């Protein structure tokens, strides 16, 4: 039942926030903050409580399960379950949910009630994606998180918001429909084999699809997740959506929405079609490496700071794709680490860009410069997140990228060597941000330094990133069993 609460708290609070906005905007904000904070505290307490359980249990244990019949005619049930991986993702989602609410506090002045409604429903939908283990339910949440996200971009975004929102929606929706076909085909294949109509992940897992059809189904799942990730040729929605979204929208998009793609690969693509995934692995890795380099090169070419950060996501998530298709423990753990740290560091950068835009109303780096003298706190935070993004040792991103490269080195040396260039490129563009915005000639801009609220939000993210960089063991303990159970699948090693 606790799993249902993770979804229900934001969903109910969203409706409540919308209703009370009629009387008081600040009450709306406090309700939203309180609800997500409560859910976050709940998730952390679950995490701490189950850390011992996660460490020394047998393979493939689910911490919690919740199942209730939904559409019995189709074999659809409301089936939620949580293991280490989904637990981690839920904690990250709710953490960034708190940050997102915090950074919209003063930015959003219009239609406040509807804004927080959408924000909270997006969080609820994403949590649902991480918890759903019935494929129909998963698809349901997968789409449900898009609608509020679409409204967030289309209503509160920047100049080209309508274009960006529609592009975002069509890209993800079209590829989700491929996912739907693949899910249905899997469903009917399973019926032919077992005579049971079911979308239950655990049951489907027991009857793996064999032969050529498995490859096509895998591809259907993979493409849907690759769009979200985003992998190289399917990434073009991302720079637009990220750039045009309001700050909280960008934080949610970069921080967690992209992770649903990576999560889908770990949860569905590899376990459901292990042989096909192995067959496809060289191509997937190649796509990942192309993404790493391509994203980094394009990032360097941007003058719009927000667009630059958006392209770095393409680069960072390329590492995740590479890691996910490397099939060893280092790379898997590294990819999961990278998912979490990218959420924090890029979320932090978007947060910062949002703050700057709120103050100076431009995102053009040509118009920035010399912020260090006027706003030292802001610049210091900026420096930190840039370093995190370039993978400075001692911060979480370093651990993730290092492990991915370590893992993939054992599989494919040339590809790893090229991927490692991405780290170098990351250094260039990160330092470029620091140089352009914070140093150099001081531009005559009015830039207030960070307020207490903003500073404390940044501090939380900074502390977490340092913690993950110095002592990542709790994270590895959390996901070890999941990783091991995936690796123990037939045909993967």
């Amino acid at each position, binding site marked *: 039942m606790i799993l249902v609460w993770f979804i229900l708290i934001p969903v109910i609070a969203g409706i409540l926030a919308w209703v009370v906005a009629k009387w008081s905007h600040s009450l709306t904000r406090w309700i939203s903050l309180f609800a997500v904070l409560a859910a976050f505290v709940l998730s952390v307490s679950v995490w701490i409580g189950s850390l011992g359980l996660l460490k020394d249990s047998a393979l493939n244990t689910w911490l919690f399960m919740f199942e209730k019949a939904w559409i019995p005619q189709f074999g659809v049930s409301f089936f939620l379950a949580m293991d280490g991986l989904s637990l981690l993702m839920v904690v990250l989602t709710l953490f960034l949910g708190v940050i997102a609410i915090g950074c919209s506090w003063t930015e959003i002045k219009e239609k406040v009630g509807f804004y927080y409604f959408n924000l909270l429903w997006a969080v609820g939908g994403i949590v649902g994606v991480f918890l759903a283990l019935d494929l129909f339910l998963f698809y349901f949440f997968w*789409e*449900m998180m898009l609608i509020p996200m679409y409204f967030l971009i289309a209503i509160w975004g920047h100049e080209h918001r309508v274009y960006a929102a529609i592009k975002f929606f069509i890209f993800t929706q079209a590829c989700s429909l491929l996912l*739907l076909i693949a899910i249905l085909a899997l469903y009917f294949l399973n019926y032919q084999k077992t005579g049971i109509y079911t979308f239950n992940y655990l049951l489907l897992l027991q009857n793996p699809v064999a032969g050529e059809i498995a490859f096509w189904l895998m591809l259907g799942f993979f493409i849907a997740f690759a769009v979200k990730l985003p992998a190289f040729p399917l990434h073009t929605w991302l720079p637009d959506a990220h750039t045009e979204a309001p700050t909280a929208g960008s934080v949610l998009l970069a921080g967690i929405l992209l992770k649903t793609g990576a999560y889908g690969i770990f949860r569905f693509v590899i376990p459901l079609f292990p042989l096909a995934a192995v067959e496809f692995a060289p191509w997937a890795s190649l796509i990942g490496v192309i993404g790493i380099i391509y994203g980094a090169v394009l990032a360097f070419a941007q003058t719009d700071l927000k667009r630059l950060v958006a392209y770095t996501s393409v680069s960072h998530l390329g590492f995740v794709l590479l890691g996910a298709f490397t099939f060893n423990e280092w790379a898997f753990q590294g990819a999961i680490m990278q998912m979490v740290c990218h959420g924090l560091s890029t979320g932090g950068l978007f947060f910062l860009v949002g703050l700057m835009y709120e103050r100076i109303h431009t995102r053009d780096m040509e118009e920035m410069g010399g912020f260090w003298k006027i706003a030292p706190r802001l610049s210091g935070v900026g420096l930190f997140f840039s370093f995190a993004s370039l993978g400075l040792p001692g911060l979480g991103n370093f651990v993730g990228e290092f492990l991915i490269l370590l893992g993939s080195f054992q599989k494919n040396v040339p590809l790893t060597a090229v991927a490692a260039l991405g780290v170098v490129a990351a250094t260039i563009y990160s330092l470029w941000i620091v140089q352009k915005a914070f140093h150099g000639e001081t531009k005559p801009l009015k830039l207030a330094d960070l307020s207490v609220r903003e500073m404390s939000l940044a501090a939380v993210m900074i502390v977490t990133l340092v913690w993950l960089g110095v002592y990542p063991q709790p994270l590895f303990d959390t996901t070890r069993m999941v990783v091991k159970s995936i690796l123990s699948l037939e045909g993967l090693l």
Partner: protein
Amino acid sequence: MSFSELMPLLPMITLAVASAIMVLLIAFCRSHNVAGFFSALSLILALFFTLNMNALAPQEVTALFYVDKYAVFYVALILVCSLIVIMLSWLYPGLKSAVQPELFVLIMVATLGASGMVCSKHFVSFFLSLETLSVAAYVLIAYLRVGRAYEAGIKYLVLASVSSAFLLLGIGLVYFELGTLDIGHLSELMARHQGMSLFVTAGLAMILVGVGFKLAVVPFHMWAPDIYQGAPAPVTAFIATVSKGAVFAFALRYLSVATNHEYGKLSLVISLIAIASMFGGNLLALLQRNVKRLLAYSSIAHAGYVLVAFQASGEMALQAVAYYLVVYFLSTLTAFGVITVLSNEQYEAENISQFEGLAWKHPLLAAIFTVAIFSLAGIPLTAGFVGKFYVLSAGIRSELWPLVFSLIASTAVGIYYYLRVVVTMYHLPGREAEASESRLCLSPIGCAVLSVLGLAVLYLGIYPARLMEIISQAMSGLI
């Protein structure tokens, strides 16, 4: 023939008697409210008698009608849709002021035709029902008697007559070769023939043209946008739902008759029509700035989706069609309902610019319209998603890959124009506009009716199990 034999047709008899009484009533009391109330009452009564019909099914009523649970389901669906259309017509400002209560009689007569068609098992009863429906529809479309409505009415009259001519000739050719008008016997007779007879093939093709026209599928779709635009919004809703639904229900029941044998090649034609409709409808809708025209093209695409389920085989296909039709009707009625409520006495809210910023002027109505549009686009949480899911399941189960992929691709195209309508509603007003921004005052009854419809769309999207159960019971007798 005793009266008890006719008992299963009680809903239709109710409608016929009520229409006759209403004609007299209107002669003495020309009141919009009284006529609206009386027609709604008689539809509710007819709906009540479907329970009786359900208890007696399956039963053959004379040589012309066959009442089974399948027919009962569709009659009930048609009656519910008509009831909603009557409520919308009652709310429609352009009619309220004109006081022309004959409109309600015409809607009831058209409903009578539609219900008759669903039960018919004979070409004669089919054709009679179809004409009852169509003739009432000509008048309904031109009812407002302004230029555009005349144009639409005449267009429909000419084109529908041509399609009826095709239909008649087709029926004649089939009769010439096989010697029966009883559709139930056709299957046996066709099986007895060796090879394909030219007359039967030509006849079936012509019947297909006639039916295709009524369903507004590509390439027989040309009339739809003009008629949708020209007719008053509630009448458009009627044409889009009741008149199409009846033809779908009839066609689906006897499609297997025509395609089971060597005439199966016809099913290839239907597949092509489905693909052309899905792409044609969705692509043409991209360019529209008029919401009613946009919904017309969208309805062409939706007819294509339903045809995908037509092509699938087995019970699942029947269920998918039924579910999809329910969902599509509800969403369409909701969408046209919003247009109805937003219209004033002179103008209809049909231009997309009239929806600009609606979400801030009247949040409830905008929310309802959003739900309807999302449902038409097939996005989860709304009934449209479950409908599309059902159709896709049926298609994938029968391994109709080209149709399935066409459905996916055209749906993706379609999302663009649906979203454009939604985006317009949520457009934040500029500084200048804000000063003049006023909250719209609309009829509370209209809002209540639409809220119920909108909630129904959400309910069927979140908890579809109950309706699926009803449908599977209704369809189980057919195979």
